[in-house]
């Protein structure tokens, strides 16, 4: 399975939740599959999806699902200790680990070689870390929502991107409708 197939499968779970989505093709795919005002699309700032989501989860009570990538976690590794030490039980970090920088042409990341992001999250102090096969992502995500416990999911999948249009929505519109959905 590739990322877009995972996103299609979990779209019904994501629909009613606050979602912060990683820069580039992940956001383009989610936007094309099921655009919702509850989706915050990152248009730039590689690496900060997990941090934005954590700030959001700590500031209000609704569940927050972050859809991140292995390359983005690697570029902001300091996020893992911050997450581990500031427990928000409404926070789920779903790392779609395709072992590559998908958006820029599938160049391999170290997560696709010797480095285990699940083990790094555990070593950082995250209490509930689950690595799963791509096909199990929906079940593991639903279980994490039901558990109401901060969870880091590392979903191992194949490299590859669906052809989707660029997001042309204005960033202030994305942010404004998202904030209205947060406070609704």
């Amino acid at each position, binding site marked *: 399975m590739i990322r877009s197939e995972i996103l299609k499968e979990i779209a019904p779970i994501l629909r009613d939740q606050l979602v*912060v989505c990683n820069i580039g093709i992940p956001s383009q795919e989610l936007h094309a599959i099921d655009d919702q005002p509850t989706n*915050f699309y*990152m*248009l*730039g*700032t590689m*690496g*900060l*999806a*997990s*941090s*934005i*989501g*954590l*700030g*959001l*989860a*700590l*500031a*209000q009570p609704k569940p927050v699902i972050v859809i991140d990538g292995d390359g983005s976690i690697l570029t*902001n590794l*300091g*996020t893992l*200790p*911050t997450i581990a030490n*500031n427990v928000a039980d409404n926070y789920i970090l779903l790392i779609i680990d395709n072992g590559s920088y998908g958006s820029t042409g599938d160049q391999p990341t170290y997560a696709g070689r010797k480095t285990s992001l699940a083990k790094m999250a555990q070593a950082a102090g995250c209490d509930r870390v689950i690595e799963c096969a791509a096909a199990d992502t929906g079940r593991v995500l639903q279980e994490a929502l039901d558990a109401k416990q901060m969870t880091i999911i590392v979903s191992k999948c194949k490299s590859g991107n669906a052809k989707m249009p660029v997001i042309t929505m204005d*960033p*202030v519109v*994305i*942010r404004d409708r*998202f*904030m209205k959905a*947060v*406070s609704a």
Partner: protein
Amino acid sequence: MNIDKKIADDLVANDVSFVTTVPCKQLAGVIAEIDQRDDIFHIPANKEDEGMGLCAGAWMGGKRPAIIMQNTAIGVTVNTLATLIQYYRMPLPMLISYRGELREPVACQVEMAVHTKAILAQMNIPTYHFHKRADVEEFDNILKYTFMCNKPVAILTDANFWGGYGDQ
């Protein structure tokens, strides 16, 4: 007047309740003050751009954020300021220790000091420079201004403002 207390009081009075920090020796007092306030959630960050991400999320979640950091980090935050805070139009007060200015004992700090205002100016970030203790009186108005215009706003605070540095 205790400026650490005054800064924390102004943050609370302006409903700023989510503060991220990366330490600087000059900021030790204000960070300690913020850490013990019940009405401020203090979340230390490992890097300043990470801290700005936390602030962006907290703001969208309904909390007013602020970041406390050293000016040497201004370069690593340029992309985050441009593509997150400014692009999505978010307010962010940045209380920045201005190392490498008058009364600085560490020569290397001057190397980023000479770029600090130029980078902030290049990014059209409103910038205030606290040099004398009394300058802290403006802090309350700067916070109001920041949340009025939804922009990142920098407050540079040099060694003279903090009353010297270390043993000097």
